[in-house]
């Protein structure tokens, strides 16, 4: 079970409180986690990654185990602690401005 934390605006959009627990088919990767997330909450399609290119939106970042995973390939395995559910997978809206 993968545990995901969404940014507040996306939690509101998907009517989610707290973290989301996702069952992921196959290896836990960014792509498989986002596929599972969008399958359960289709209103999130296009908000985290582009509808067509499936690229991460520029101001969205991924963190886990105190590491920035945003630039990891989408099919790279996530850390074991995320795959096991011991650690959270954070989807974060980048802080910008002053």
């Amino acid at each position: 079970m993968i545990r995901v934390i969404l940014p507040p605006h996306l939690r509101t959009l998907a009517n989610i409180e707290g973290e989301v627990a996702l069952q992921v088919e196959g290896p836990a990767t960014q792509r498989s986690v986002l596929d599972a997330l969008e399958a359960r909450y289709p209103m999130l399609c296009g908000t985290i990654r582009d509808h067509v290119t499936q690229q991460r939106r520029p101001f969205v970042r991924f963190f886990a185990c105190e590491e920035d995973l945003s630039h990891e390939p989408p099919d790279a395995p996530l850390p074991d602690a995320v795959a096991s559910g011991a650690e959270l997978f954070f989807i974060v809206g980048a802080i910008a401005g002053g």
Partner: protein
Amino acid sequence: MSRVRVLVGTRKGAFLLESDGKRENWKVSGPHFAGWEIYHIKGSSVDPNRLYASQTSGWFGQIIQRSDDGGKTWHQPGTPPGEPTTTPDGTPKGESNKFVYDTSPKSGKPLTTHQFYDGTQHPWEFKRVWHLEPSLTDPDTVYAGVEDAALFRTTDGGQTWHELAGLRGHGTGPKWQPGAGGMCLHTILLDPSNPKRIFIAISSAGAFRTDDAGKTWRPINRGLKSQYIPDPNAEVGHCVHRIAMHRSRPGVLFMQKHWDVMRSEDAGDSWQEVSGNLPTDFGFPIEVHAHEPNTVYVVPIKSDGEHYPPEGKLRVYRSRTGGNEWEALTKGLPQRDCYVNVLRDAMAVDSLDSCGVYFGTTGGQVYTSADAGNTWAPIVRDLPAVVSVEVQTIP
């Protein structure tokens, strides 16, 4: 007695302002979609309870929201409330937020790049929906004007959107370039007397018209003069800020251009300047009185470098002669130290017997006049910056 519902889009959410026909006491609801930019909300003239909203964010992209109960509840059309969000095989049901440019060979033409700020060619990239224009006959059909400039349409109540690619593909697309606010298609006018005729406007490409329901388009910018365009007869490249028409006379158009207020008597085939005695002819919105086709409203703004009213006085100007002769409307509006702007989609009129006029400011005020502009009063003073104002007159 009829009542009115004012639909306000702001930088941080949507607000609905409702009153009876006297327009003195207002009930305010919101913020809806708190924290998101709401570029536009508009109701169907066929079904006043059907509202569409463009909710957008630099972080999370475009969301289309729909209400079927006059704004009490909202949902994304692809995932109606209470229904499963996926099909039995697990596929997401709705694609109501998906705006994908048509690059099919059938559409023809390049459809790939436009001119960028530096003169180079740049790929079309979807950013947001600026304007939603519901059909005059079908509540499930809506047109969407988007940035980068293109026109989309839904015929299933917002569940799916498809581009009317003839606009970008008609030939001048590679010459279009963004204005300071982006390359946005911000105005959509549907001709009530001819369902096949649509007018649109793009900053800063100009105005365009279709006479075959969106298959083919042509620029309608003859007579527009834009400083710094080397060719005075340029077919495109004009920064049109807004167009308006009266439904009884759809061949007569009024335009607020970057500079200049213009009028066309021939559905845009040619334009004449009608700025007349305005203190400045720069501005964004332009509107026409609900019952007087020759009565027009603008809000003069000092200049393109100083986006606020001249002399710190917020004045709506009204012409009862279709332009050229303008009078300042000031009663109830701040006449000192006022430095707000009024954006292009932030003015509207109701259709009560005594025509109401409404506008919102970047300072968060929404003003109304229940007597066609003679006197004004704020409905609200402290909203986030107002991006758009629409009004529904409800029997």
